[in-house]
């Protein structure tokens, strides 16, 4: 067992990656177990996304060509708003009974907690996307004219972009009075480049007119930059009183 705290930089560097991995895995498993039991986030997200699909499909009656042009925007905006529901719940559970304090007094590294939360959100939002995408395809009669396999990296990188920033900003807004309002206010402006990449990349693949390569690289760069920044800054956020 290490004699170091989670607070100091030297202590952090001494913590083995195995310990971090174990704590990340334990926290992730715990979060998924709690979500599986309550289904708080998943139910709200599914209901919201389903409403978006149905309402938009009833509001418009686009031709196949028009569908391909607008579907990227519709899909990602629906997922973005639905993800906010899950992200708002991420830390709420840790506030009940002040459980976060139990983590803060332990020697567990803050990064492990952040990574577990981000991975948990990634899992839940990806699950939602996997369930909702077939519905979008059916309701909007979608067929990709470009290389459809490229939708996978765009989906994965785009989802990670949303959840990594969302997890971070949800932690920042944790102690604010109107945190459910604060999260979108903080998250949406900073997510604009990622949302642009997701929408433009998806549209490029669906219409087959342009290559999505540039947008995939943009999303990858965005993910690397923001994941690094969030991991570096999370300790300060967790220590804030």
């Amino acid at each position, binding site marked *: *067992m290490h004699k170091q*705290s989670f607070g100091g930089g030297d202590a952090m560097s001494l913590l083995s990656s195995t310990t971090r991995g174990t704590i990340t895995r*334990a926290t992730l498993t715990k979060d998924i*177990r709690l979500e599986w039991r309550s289904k708080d986030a998943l139910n709200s997200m599914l209901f919201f996304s389903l409403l978006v699909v149905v309402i938009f499909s009833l509001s418009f009656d686009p031709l196949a060509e028009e569908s391909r042009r607008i579907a990227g925007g519709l899909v990602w905006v629906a997922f973005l708003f639905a993800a906010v529901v899950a992200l708002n719940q991420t830390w709420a559970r840790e506030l009940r009974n002040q459980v976060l304090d139990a983590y803060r*007094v332990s020697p567990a590294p803050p990064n492990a907690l952040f990574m577990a939360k981000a991975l948990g959100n990634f899992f839940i939002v990806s699950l939602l996307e996997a369930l909702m995408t077939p519905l979008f395809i059916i309701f909007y009669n979608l067929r990709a004219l470009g290389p459809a396999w490229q939708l996978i990296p765009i989906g994965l990188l785009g989802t990670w972009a949303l959840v990594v920033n969302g997890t971070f900003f949800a932690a920042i807004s944790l102690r604010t009075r109107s945190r459910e309002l604060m999260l979108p206010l903080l998250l949406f402006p900073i997510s604009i480049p990622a949302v642009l990449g997701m929408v433009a990349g998806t549209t490029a693949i669906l219409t087959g007119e342009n290559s999505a390569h540039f947008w995939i690289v943009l999303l990858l760069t965005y993910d690397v930059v923001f994941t690094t920044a969030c991991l570096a800054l999370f300790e300060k956020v967790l220590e804030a009183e």
Partner: protein
Amino acid sequence: MTDAPPIITATNVIKQFGRFAALRGVSTEFGAGKFYAILGDNGAGKTTLLRIIAGLARPTGGCVSVLGMSPRDACREIGYMAHASLLYDEMSGMENLRYFARLYGIDDDKHGDQAIRMVALDPTLSRPVGQYSQGMRQRMSLARAILHDPKILLLDEPFSNVDAQSAREMVTLLTRMRDAGKTILLVTHQASLLEGAANKFVRMGAGQVVECTNSLSAAGTL
């Protein structure tokens, strides 16, 4: 304040919340292997002092040393029990302890099982903690605090909402822990429960340590 070698030292600790001073230059020492009862009215600064020693709050001025280190660096040797349970209501007691054990690098269930038995609960109880009685929840919270066998226990109002019998059982358990060499700092409004158990009674008022006595009657709180 202590005849035993100091394990916790607070030097001129100040804590401001905006314009409100919760602690106004607290300087005190807590000796190893002693049981301290920290008493005082609401707003006296008891909880704030405990949170600073636990590393959950930073002092605005002054410093706190635990085992010669900063509270954060000594966190493996500190067990903290707060007003709230610090437990997940949706998980059973054992599931909670299993998770918190991982945070201290403990991979087996033996420690959790032992901690639950020490507080006279059943480790096989599969009911979620949210369905526990308040007394059971307090005891499970104590089990979480002692899970990693810390040298120092910081307990904030462990007897609140606990019936008299359970409270006496907790005091007996804490006395045994003190005898085993643990240093205990316990914040309470039910000082009479600790008569004959605590070694020192520290009375706080208006963000300062007012006095430290060996008996409750001398502390002027009876």
